[in-house]
């Protein structure tokens, strides 16, 4: 089967496709989140060292991962948008930002609430926490810059540039625990090894997949709003609003 992928670079073609894709991500996201939450909160036993507070990692780690992955995805779409001058790419970058910012804030919030019983403090200016906070400011900067410029093309170019520059912060966040002496511990799970108990690691993985699927579903929903908003004077949108009635 030969699929012409470039066809979907057009907002008019991508809009219905995104609508069809949303349930395929949203439904498994809800199912996995419910399974993960029940297991993580009520079934798994307390950790022998951290007690009950370790349960925070089931939302903290996926949130932290998503905040970094979404920023990289944002930078990727921004580059594609700048290189090929594709409208849909810049819409994708714009649609990703709020979800990434939310996950970034939640990683910091849940990290602080995990840090107090574990380290004895809500916050410390170590490399991992500080670079994660910088990431949150990069998200805010991106959204503020995009909103401040009225012309969509200029807004996409300026905020896209900020997204690309800010992407250099992501590997710094990831490797900060290796490069500097930080209070934040190193990665407990890497592609090759896991220092966590298998049951805990599997719940974290379930929650991480749920966060991935949720992010994709929400981004698709938001990009549909972006498309309608920016293409509101296009003939196909006028037809769509007639059909919707």
């Amino acid at each position, binding site marked *: 089967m030969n699929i012409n992928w470039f066809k979907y670079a057009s907002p008019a073609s991508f809009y219905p496709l995104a609508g069809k894709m949303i349930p395929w991500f949203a439904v498994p996201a809800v199912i996995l989140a419910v399974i993960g939450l029940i297991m993580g909160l009520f079934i798994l036993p307390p950790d022998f060292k951290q007690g009950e507070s370790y349960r925070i990692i089931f939302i*903290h780690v996926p949130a932290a991962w998503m905040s970094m992955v979404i920023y990289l995805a944002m930078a990727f779409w921004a580059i594609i948008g700048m290189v090929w001058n594709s409208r849909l790419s810049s819409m994708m970058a714009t649609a990703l930002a709020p979800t990434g910012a*939310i996950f970034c804030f*939640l990683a910091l919030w849940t990290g602080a*609430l*995990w840090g107090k019983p574990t380290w004895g403090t809500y916050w410390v200016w170590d490399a991992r926490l500080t670079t994660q906070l910088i990431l949150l400011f990069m998200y805010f900067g991106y959204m503020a810059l995009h909103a401040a410029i009225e012309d969509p093309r200029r807004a996409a170019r300026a905020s896209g540039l900020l997204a690309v520059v800010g992407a250099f912060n992501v590997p710094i966040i990831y490797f900060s625990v290796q490069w500097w002496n930080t209070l934040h511990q190193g990665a407990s799970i890497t592609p090759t090894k896991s220092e966590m108990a298998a049951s805990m690691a599997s719940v974290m993985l379930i929650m991480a997949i749920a966060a991935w699927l949720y992010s994709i579903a929400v981004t698709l929903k938001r990009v549909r*709003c972006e498309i*309608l*908003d920016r293409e509101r004077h296009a003939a196909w949108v006028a037809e769509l*609003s007639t059909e919707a009635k």
Partner: protein
Amino acid sequence: MAELFDMGKHTWFVWGSYAVFFIFIVAELVLLGRRRRTIWQRLSRIKRMNSGDNNET
């Protein structure tokens, strides 16, 4: 039931994390739904304006 939600001395930390997490996710979905409605209202306004222009000409 209360036993199920009891996290010992870590109750505030665990439920404080999960509550804020849940609030933000729900808020994102509600705001997204509201934005969608606003856009559709704007689109129908544009459509009404355009059909008004066509009727005048």
